[in-house]
């Protein structure tokens, strides 16, 4: 009898536990609320988890510990839940101009920061010149080289207002093509001229060149290379500022007396993965926040030596009274990790520790001009969201 009683109480206990669990939301919340579960790693492990240590020969502890159960043996939960992330994630803007931006992104894993960077470089769309119809080119620069140069010119046009061209490239309308015209001539007897991007003229009505079409009847309008239904500058969705070239003084070619270039360039929407000309950024890069730690007090002559070692002036010297001086780390952010300060023997490596904070990114975006940098970043994040959505759709 007594045995039966025992098992009964066990079942009750479990029910009790279950009830408690439900009260506390999910099981994980319940476990975390228990007092015996430590929520912090020992300091040394925390250091190894959050810092890269840059030694004189190589950086160590470079990996990020992603697995949720990595510290299960210590009963520390390494999973990251969304509410935790939202609490800790921070963005601090350092610099923002029309075409570049620097900000600190704190509390995010490199996997995500890198995804944003990769998308910025190769998957955010822009408009770039894709087809060039050359009517005349007597300059010294060959047609294909000229076309390539034209392709790389940044165009100021919001790519979100355009559609991708159809794969055959035959249907070119006001929704997917921007047409530019370039016609320059250097008269005989004139000095040589430099053709710059300001000579490129936007044609909102579409192409003006007549395509060779033998079986059209004489009465109809001559066919051109595009079929615009209306003028682009009359479309309401295009902003007040006209479509144009971002920089007006990029050199396209040089013409000698008697030489001439006449062409039409058609820009379409694309992504940097296809060709770098569609990349919306000049560069998008990040570095981890440097952290310089003095492991022991560096005093007097040594402090002077340390200060002089660093080419970017990370260290400063402060007076601590009685004619004594001590080195301090004044500008760690400027550290380029040249490792000059830990050269000169083991004793220096024991004095100075160079580290990087693994989840603090100093992110820099330089836009080529189609969109302001902050919008580029937003677009990049949206693209990652779209990718996730695609996967969810596929799996449902």
């Amino acid at each position: 009898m007594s045995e039966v009683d025992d098992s009964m109480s066990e079942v009750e206990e479990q029910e009790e536990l279950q009830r408690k669990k439900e009260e506390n939301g999910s099981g994980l919340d319940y476990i975390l609320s228990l007092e015996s579960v430590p929520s912090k790693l020992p300091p040394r492990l925390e250091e190894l988890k959050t810092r890269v240590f840059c030694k004189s020969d190589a950086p160590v502890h470079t990996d990020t510990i992603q697995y949720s159960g990595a510290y299960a043996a210590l009963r520390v939960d390494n999973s990251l839940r969304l509410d935790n992330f939202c609490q800790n994630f921070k963005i601090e803007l350092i610099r923002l101009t029309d075409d570049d931006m620097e900000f600190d992104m704190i509390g995010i894993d490199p996997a995500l920061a890198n995804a944003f960077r990769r998308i910025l470089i190769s998957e955010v769309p822009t408009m770039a010149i894709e087809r060039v119809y050359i009517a005349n080119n007597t300059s010294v620069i060959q047609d294909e080289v000229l076309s390539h140069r034209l392709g790389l010119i940044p165009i100021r046009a919001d790519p979100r207002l355009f559609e991708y061209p159809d794969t055959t490239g035959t249907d070119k309308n006001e929704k997917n093509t921007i047409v530019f015209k370039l016609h320059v001539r250097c008269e005989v007897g004139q000095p040589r001229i430099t053709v710059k991007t300001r000579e490129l003229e936007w044609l909102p009505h579409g192409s003006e060149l007549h395509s060779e079409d033998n079986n059209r009847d004489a009465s109809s309008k001559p066919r051109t290379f595009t079929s615009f239904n209306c003028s682009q500058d009359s479309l309401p969705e295009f902003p007040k500022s006209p479509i144009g070239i971002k920089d007006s003084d990029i050199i396209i070619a040089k013409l000698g007396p008697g030489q001439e270039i006449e062409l039409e360039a058609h820009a379409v929407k694309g992504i940097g993965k296809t060709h770098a000309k569609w990349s919306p950024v000049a560069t998008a890069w990040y570095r981890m926040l440097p952290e310089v730690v003095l492991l022991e007090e560096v005093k007097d002559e040594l402090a002077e030596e340390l200060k002089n070692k660093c080419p970017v002036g990370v260290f400063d010297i402060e007076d601590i009274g009685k004619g004594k001086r001590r080195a301090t780390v004044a500008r760690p952010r400027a550290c380029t990790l040249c490792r000059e300060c830990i050269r000169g023997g083991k004793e220096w490596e024991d004095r100075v520790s160079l580290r990087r904070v693994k989840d603090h990114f100093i992110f820099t975006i330089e836009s080529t001009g189609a969109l302001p940098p902050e919008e580029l970043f937003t677009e990049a994040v949206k693209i990652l969201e779209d990718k996730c959505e695609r996967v969810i759709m596929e799996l449902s």
Partner: protein
Amino acid sequence: MEHVSYSDQSKSTFSLADEDHTLANAVRFTLNQDPRVTFSGYSIPHPSENRVNIRVQTTGDPAREVLKDACQDLMLTCQHVRSTLDKAVSDFKLNNTGKDMDTK
């Protein structure tokens, strides 16, 4: 596309076309943060084929659901990043126009 055995749905390989490290690495990270996941990793079988294989093994839940949850989490994370940036930018602009006015 999913490769999974009928008898055990907790282990499975997902083959995603037209994706690369960008998504796969980010998803692997979110998967790894999920306590239900015992193993996750990805590989690109051939560099000239636009495809990644993501392997997910769980403690019991269907791998497909766990992957879906990870994607959902990643989306919410992205949304939070986006709103944080928007806020930082508008704050920055506000502060800086203030400064400009001071100097004038």
